[in-house]
């Protein structure tokens, strides 16, 4: 058995925006940091996100994904983070021991603190149980984006997109720019799940139809996709007979949801939240396993990379605090839970002694003129009016409590 165990203060798993920001802030706060990333180039998913819209909050600029990533790569390297590319973590145990694998070498690494920033994977056709044949030409939108933007591959000529999430909308435009015919975008819900500006600049600009309250009922084609049957669905998510129509296409792209990638976290004994599929964390982004932290899309799916990076920065500082012995492990905790109109909240717990907690959450359905409240026992601790709320957009609310939180649980709800 190998005895090459490199020990360090903080290991960050994942070099996307959250991981890079976590590594940089942990190092800035004084920790020795090693960041491992499985790709050749840092930046995570941002490397294939060649569209713009990043950085408005973080830098006041409109950047493409790779440009945004480069800023955080620079920050991490300037802060003295040791970066190991082409390195995947094959195993993680609760004591912070990692098994790392890289071309030509497989070794152990140990961090007194470990920050999970592995990002997410895409929901698949198999998970949705879309009926029909299994021809070539069915791809998740993110995989198609990698193939298009990194591998110089044309995925197909005539494309139908299932799901109106941002990745699908961006790919509708990208493929149109590259000479493909995008037959349409099909969305099960009665409202689009991507940002309104993407409906404009990706669909409306090109006359690509958006079919709301519709979904795919069958894939056709023995060897390669030949067509997809689409039908209108009712409010119980059942197809309405007689509304079916066939869309001729050779490619079906799926943009039907992202799932935090917590396989490694499970192996380390991290408890997951059933709604987010991410870890249950406290206000310092620490999981139930002492010393293991979580941030970014692996914690909960973010709508903007800017927020994922900010969350990473907070988690990184917290990890360094932990290494320095600054976190009282046995601090009394309160629960933070979703109430009316709110689907989930992160963090799910906070230290009773915390003087400020930043709560991120998402609403269950679109609405206007609502107020978000953080409340307990009839008292409102924080409130914010939401001009327009949408499940696709993450909301953040700061709960300031100079005298600590003298309740057992806080509820985040819409009023």
């Amino acid at each position, binding site marked *: *058995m*190998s005895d090459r165990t490199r020990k360090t203060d903080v290991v960050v798993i994942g070099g996307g925006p959250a991981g890079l920001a976590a590594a940089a802030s942990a190092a800035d706060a004084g920790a020795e940091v090693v960041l491992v990333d*499985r790709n050749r180039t840092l930046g995570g998913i941002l490397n294939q996100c060649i569209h713009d819209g990043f950085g408005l909050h973080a830098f006041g600029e409109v950047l493409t994904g790779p440009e945004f990533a480069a800023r955080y790569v620079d920050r991490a390297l300037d802060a003295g983070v040791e970066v190991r590319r*082409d390195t*995947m973590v*094959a195993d993680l145990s609760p004591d912070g021991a990692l*098994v790392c*694998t*890289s*071309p*030509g*070498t*497989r*070794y152990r690494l140990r961090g007194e603190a470990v920050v999970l920033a592995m990002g997410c*994977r*895409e929901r*698949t*056709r*198999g*998970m949705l*149980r879309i*009926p*029909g*044949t*299994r*021809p*070539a*030409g069915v*791809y*998740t939108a*993110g*995989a198609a984006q*990698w*193939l*298009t933007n*990194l*591998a*110089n*591959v*044309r*995925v*197909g*000529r005539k494309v139908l997109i299932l799901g109106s999430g941002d990745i699908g909308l961006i790919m509708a435009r990208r493929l149109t720019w*590259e000479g493909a015919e995008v037959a349409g975008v099909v969305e099960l819900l009665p409202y689009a799940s991507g940002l309104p500006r993407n409906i404009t600049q990706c669909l409306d600009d090109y006359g690509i139809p958006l079919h709301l309250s519709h979904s795919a*009922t*069958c894939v056709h084609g*023995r*060897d*390669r996709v030949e067509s997809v049957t689409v039908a209108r669905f009712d409010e119980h998510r059942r197809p309405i007979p007689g509304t079916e129509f066939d869309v001729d296409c*050779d490619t079906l792209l799926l943009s039907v949801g992202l799932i935090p990638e917590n*396989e490694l976290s499970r192996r380390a004994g991290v408890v997951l939240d059933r709604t987010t599929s991410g870890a249950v964390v406290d206000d310092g982004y620490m999981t139930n396993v002492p010393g293991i932290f979580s941030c970014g899309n692996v914690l909960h799916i973010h709508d903007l990379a800017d927020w994922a990076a900010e969350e990473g920065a907070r988690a990184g500082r917290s990890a360094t605090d932990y290494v320095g012995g600054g976190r009282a492990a046995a601090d009394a905790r309160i629960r933070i839970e979703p109430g009316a109109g709110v689907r989930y909240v992160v963090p799910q717990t906070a230290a009773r002694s915390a003087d400020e907690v930043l709560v991120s959450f998402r609403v269950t359905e679109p609405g206007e003129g609502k107020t978000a409240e953080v409340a307990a026992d009839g008292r409102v601790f924080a409130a914010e009016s939401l001009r327009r709320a949408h499940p696709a957009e993450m909301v953040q609310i700061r709960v300031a409590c100079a005298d600590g939180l003298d309740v057992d649980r806080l509820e985040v709800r819409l009023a």
Partner: protein
Amino acid sequence: MSERYDVVVIGAGVVGTAIARTLARFDGTFAIVERAHDVGMGASVRNSGVIHAGINCLPGTFRARFCMEGRALLQDWCDELNVPYSICGKLVVARRDEEIPSLERLMADGEANGVPDLRIVSGAEAERVQPGISGVAALHVPTSGIVSPYALTIATAEDAADNGVRFFLGSEAVGIEPDEDGFAIRTTTGTIRTRFLINSAGIHAGRVARLLDPDAPAVYPCVGEYLILDKQAGETMTTSVYPAPGAANAGLGVHITPTTEGNILLGPSSEYVADPETVCCTKTTTDRLLDEACVMWPDLPRNLVIGAYAGLRSKLTSPATGGFSDYVFRRTTEHPNAVHLLGIESPGLTAAPAIARHVVEDLVSPDAGLARRAPSEWRVRRWPDRFDELPEAEKERLVAANPDHGEIVCRCEGVTKAEILHALDNPLGVRTLAGIKFRTRASMGRCSGGYCLPRIVEILQEERGWSPDDFLLRGPDSPAFAGRLLEASRV
């Protein structure tokens, strides 16, 4: 293709490849013709992967005989070939007292076939064997097992290829003419001559038989749909669980079957179809699979479905009749040198080595005069161990010896770059994405290839000079892509 083979097999499914492997232990020239671009692309990789105990076969039939003989041979073959299998046992569960007699009938059939250690147990004891299932009583079948059907078929085929059997893939038999010394088989890739012919073409065996013999019976395709559950589900469900057969409101009679990799299969359904070329999964059937499986396994994690597939059984009973018929090994007095295997449905996988032995040793070899080769003249090609399943020390050793084992390409299944590249060096010359998938498990995990496909494309483009048009899902008719996005030279 101008030489004359001693024996040509049509159809490289699990039975055809088992026949090829068996032939390879004899002196002679042998070939196998397969319309798909890899072996096992029909029912052989789209079934439950079960090593049947023999309780579900009518005593005295070929099915029963070859099930019992085959299950022993199959385990020997898997030990030789290093193909994964496990004797994990089975529980046939009665939900109501009225179903117990059907368990007793199964037990009686099983004992008549020589199945050992059968016991009817209480619901509570069944739950001790397999926690989480719900029933009043169960037939415990400890000798029932599971095997990887794709590993078995491919390992058998590659072993046969290594030992001299010629494989003609992408070659469909479209005509069979008797000639002076046997047959001339016209295929889509040329004519192949042979002294003896074995037709193991599965759902196409009837059509192939009628190329020679217009009176050959029809084979009816009957679809079985399956759902695949994430390996997380397999952590708690480790025994096969079947419902008591023929019960009132039996519905589909859906089975819960673990796989050798740790997934769970739900299914199959059973429905005759008109068109064998278009195999589909349907919403109504997969919904029913889930609902019925939940009856036996109330805590079945429905959110852990990761995929679905459908396979076609070869049935000799028509849609009007239904039910089962025994295997048919058809030889006519006009063409005694042609053997047609018709209606090889369950327990076809279990029976395959025994069917192969019967066809080769009992039916063909006596007339063909084939002599056995000495064991020193052939060697076994072992299915490679999966890197992901090796102990850590062995992994480190392998990575040091081959750096490409240090790069994980399929994150969900832990498949390394070295395994991917090795899969492409197979003796059958298969270069399809499905070929890589079944040889390595890449893209069979929960993300369905979302992670590994782009990386496989990158690796093969950069290191093997592939272009987008070289990526085929199952063959030339299923191109994965539509060329390059940008071309270097533009007119």
